[in-house]
Structure formats: structure tokens, C-alpha cells
């Protein structure tokens, strides 16, 4: 139903990941920007966790071999359908034979193409997410997409397809990505167990410095550069389970943030954990851009979580409105 005409090594099928196998050493995986994936799916009337395509760094070119609804979310970039420019956070109908071309983003990192019904491929360990480290998931045994691949989708409501086709498409507003006065993207953080073991002046630097995202950042984690952070005394910790968003400081003194495909255990001291609601804005920060850590408490983290959930509800409402158009 969809033919891949061109794809880079980072175009993969992802859903919301494997949520019951971290105790087997299997990474959570799934979309780096899970909020963008959910948005795209909800715009289409899919379950929020249906499988879509995540892409970064290289062009992605797809040909639709049937009429179908698709949605574009995540990092804004140059996108065309048969040469006509499309905006991001947009849902519309593709007609059979049309070609969608997505260029690598210069504003963010991860762009998502969701399709009505979701990508159809076998679940492995409860998920359709592609895990290239262990070679499971996605339609091709853990491999990224490449030219000549064919993707199929689950069935979807043809009425929605016709209605949105006649409407011409519709868009939604994304969640906020606030920036500080120096341009650093603000990311809210809860302190973690070893925070108190760091030199007080370095604790202050953690909250004040602009942390630059380094090139060696990927689906496993983002490396940051800035002032060196040191514990008051050398710490040797036995390996402990990791959550996505944990900010560890290895002996180099440069923090790293564990992300979707991080290993499930690690042993470095941890400063804090990025609140789950701010992972979408964190992962969209490009190498060379900076992040500012903002200290928040538990209550604020839960409030932010509800705010994101509220945003998804507005997307559901928008879809309903669009499909009732006449």
C-alpha cells in the first residue's frame, strides 16, 4: 500500500515501545517523540499507539499505492506531496500514485508519518517498534526502511478518508517548546538520588549552564557538553535500572540523558530525571543547540503530564470536527 522510494538509516517503524520487557534487558524503544506519534495517530482516528514511521537526518520518499489518509507531526521540515508543499502537524488524503517527500529537518530532529489504520506488521515482545540493536520489530526484522520496501496498513474508515479528502486537510497546534532568553530550550527536571553528592557549585551550574547537545547523540541517548560536574567524593555505584530521561554524569563530568533505546541498567551517578512531559521537547533539540535545566517538583511534573494529556484531547476534538465537516 505504501512503497518506500528512498530512506536513510534512521527511518524506522515505531510505536510506543515495549513496556513489559525491561527486566529482560530489552530497551523500551518506540518513538523518540512519543507525543508527536500520538498526535499523528489521533489526527487519523487511530489508537494513539499505532505504528508509524519515524525519520531523521536523511530524506524519506514514499509513494502511496492506494488512496489513504496520512498525518505529519514532529519536527518541521520541507515536505511535499507531488511537489506541493505541506505544513507540519497536518492531516490530509493522499491519492493513489502520489509521492510524499520529506527532507531532513533543520529545526528539530524527529519527524513522523502516521497512516490511517497504522502500519501493519507483526508484534514482537508486545510492540511493532524497530529495535536495530537486537534486530527485532518493524516489518523487516529490526531493520530500518530502505528503497523498494513495501508497507501495508491496517484497515481504516473510508468515510473519514473521503471527508478529509473533500475538506482538503486540517491542522492542529503542537505543544509548546519554550526557549530561554539565550535561546536554550527549557527542560524541566526532578532531582535524583545522587544530586546531593555533587559539589554545591556544580549543582548551581547544572541549573544555570546552557547545555549543548553533542553530535554523538542518538536514540540511545543525548550527550551534553558544558561545565564539568563532579561529585564531592568519587562514587562507585552498582548497576541500577534506568528510566527514560535519567541524566547521568560519567567520570568525564559531562552529563548524558538516557532515551528511548538506552540500555536498561547503568551505573553512573544521576543528577536528575527529565519529566516525562518534557521528553518530546528535549528530543527535538538539535546537536549544536542548547538545553537549560529547570528544577521542578513532583506536583509540577504531574501537572505538566496532565497538560500534555489535555493537548491530545484537543487533537481528538479537532479530528471529530474535521470529520463532521460538510
Amino acid at each position: 500500500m505504501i512503497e518506500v522510494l528512498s530512506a536513510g538509516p534512521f527511518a524506522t517503524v515505531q510505536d510506543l515501545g515495549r513496556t513489559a520487557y525491561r527486566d529482560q534487558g530489552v530497551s523500551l524503544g518506540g518513538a523518540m517523540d512519543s507525543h508527536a506519534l500520538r498526535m499523528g495517530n489521533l489526527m487519523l482516528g487511530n489508537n494513539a499507539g499505532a505504528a508509524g514511521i519515524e525519520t531523521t537526518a536523511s530524506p524519506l520518499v514514499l509513494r502511496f499505492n492506494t488512496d489513504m489518509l496520512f498525518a505529519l507531526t514532529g519536527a518541521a521540515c520541507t515536505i511535499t506531496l507531488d511537489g506541493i508543499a505541506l505544513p507540519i502537524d497536518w492531516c490530509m488524503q493522499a491519492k493513489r500514485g502520489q509521492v510524499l517527500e520529506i527532507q531532513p529537518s533543520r529545526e528539530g530532529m524527529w519527524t513522523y508519518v502516521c497512516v490511517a489504520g497504522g502500519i501493519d506488521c507483526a508484534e514482537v515482545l508486545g510492540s511493532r517498534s524497530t529495535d536495530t540493536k537486537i534486530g527485532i520489530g518493524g516489518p523487516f526484522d529490526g531493520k530500518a526502511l530502505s528503497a523498494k520496501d513495501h508497507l501495508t496498513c491496517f484497515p481504516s474508515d473510508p468515510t473519514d478518508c473521503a471527508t478529509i479528502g473533500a475538506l482538503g486537510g486540517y491542522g492542529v497546534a503542537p505543544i509548546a517548546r519554550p526557549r530561554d532568553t539565550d535561546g536554550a530550550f527549557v527542560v524541566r527536571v526532578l532531582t535524583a538520588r545522587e544530586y546531593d553528592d555533587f559539589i554545591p557549585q556544580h549543582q548551581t551550574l547544572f541549573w544555570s549552564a546552557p547545555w549543548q547537545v553533542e553530535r554523538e547523540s542518538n536514540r540511545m541517548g543525548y550527550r551534553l557538553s558544558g561545565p564539568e560536574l563532579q561529585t564531592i567524593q568519587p562514587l562507585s555505584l552498582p548497576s541500577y535500572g534506568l528510566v527514560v530521561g535519567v541524566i547521568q554524569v560519567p567520570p568525564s563530568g559531562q552529563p548524558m540523558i538516557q532515551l528511548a533505546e538506552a540500555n536498561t541498567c547503568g551505573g553512573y551517578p544521576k543528577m536528575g530525571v527529565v519529566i516525562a512531559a518534557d521528553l518530546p521537547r528535549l528530543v527535538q533539540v538539535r546537536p549544536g543547540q542548547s538545553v537549560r535545566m529547570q528544577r521542578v517538583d513532583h506536583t509540577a511534573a504531574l501537572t505538566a503530564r496532565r497538560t500534555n494529556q489535555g493537548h491530545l484531547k484537543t487533537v481528538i476534538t479537532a479530528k471529530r470536527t474535521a470529520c463532521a465537516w460538510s
Partner: protein
Amino acid sequence: MDHRQLIRDTPPEYDISAMGEAGLLLHVSHPINMQAQETIWSLARAGADWHGVDETIAGVNNLLVVFDPDITDAAAVEKLISKAWANPPNMGRTPKLHRIPVRYGGIFGPDLPLLCQETGLSPEEYIHRHSTGKYIVMAVGAMAGFGYLGGLDPSLAVPRRATPRMNIKAGSVIIGGAQTAVTTVTSPSGWNVIGQTDTQFFDPSNERPAMLQLGDQVTFHPEESA
């Protein structure tokens, strides 16, 4: 409320801290302790069924409990952890014994000469001590199906390499500090390689895809040459 406010009235043997707004980390205070580790295994198994808990990940003398803040809250989960610690449930699983054949040394164990140099043991003696050891799976993590094994003879311990190798094959039998393990996917590693096994440690078609589970026992033996 930050992570420190959860540490209150807990028995001196462990502390509980927040790992984000959806995780609690139980960290045992004293040096690595097998009785505490057995309690952790018990909580790891029982915890997966607690109300609102998504996953439990046992580490070495610690336990991460990941929960859904839409269903429960940190205070409720902390109570469940403390209650279970005081009265660990009997999870009734019989540990499995895994006997792992290893091709030691030569091209399969490029770091064996260095380890012999560091420890003052002959290759035969190093291999003998490694292959007569009895190991326990303390935790599963680091990579899919990877078991952190306790029980390495201290005379065999050698620190990790200063420069990690970019890629070592899955099935590499490795020594890192005072731990031994077997890699389960081809990956970069700073550990020392002493041998190779063909045993598969991870099968995604199994409901529990890791062959090594918490508390299982592992022994190594030199593979008979053909």
C-alpha cells in the same frame, strides 16, 4: 516535593528515592549483600503485579519500580515496597542451573594473556578457577538477556580496559573488575574477553525472552574440542 522527601521513616538498610515522577528506586545501604539481593528478587517478581505498577527492574542491591501516575502515586507505591521488604513474599520459582560451554583463550580469548599477567596466574590456572566457579544471576540488564553474574573468584578480577573495543561478538565471555558475564549482542565493550560461547541468551519468541532469570545459577566449562 523532591526526591529527598520520600526518604522518611525507612529502616536503615535501604533508602527509597524518586526516579522521575513515575519511578521509585530502592537502594540497599550496605555493601553487596546476598540476602538483600534475594529480597530484591522477590520484590521484583511480586511488584510487577502491584496496583498501578508497570515494571520492576532489579539491579545489583537495588530495585526500580516503574508505575503509572494516572493510576497510583509515589506514596502508595512506597508503602507497597516497604511492606513487601518487611515481609518478602515467597515467589516460589526454582532457580535454573545453566551450564555454559566455553572456548577459552587463543583467538577466542584475546585478553587472557593480559589477565594472566595482571593476576600472576597461568592460563591453565585462570581458566580452571573461572570454570569451577559457581555464579548467580544478580540482575538482568545492560543489553537484552545480559546477566550480571555474582561469585567471581576475587583472584581473577582485573579492571576494565582503558580503551573499550568498538565491537565484541555476542557470546563473548568477559571479565570486568570483579564481575564476569557473557555478552548477548555484538556491541562495544570495555570488558576483558577470555572466551567465546555459542549459547543463545536471548530468544524474542519466548514470553520471558532472557534465558538467564533472577537467581538462576550459572557454571562455565571448557568446550570439548572436536
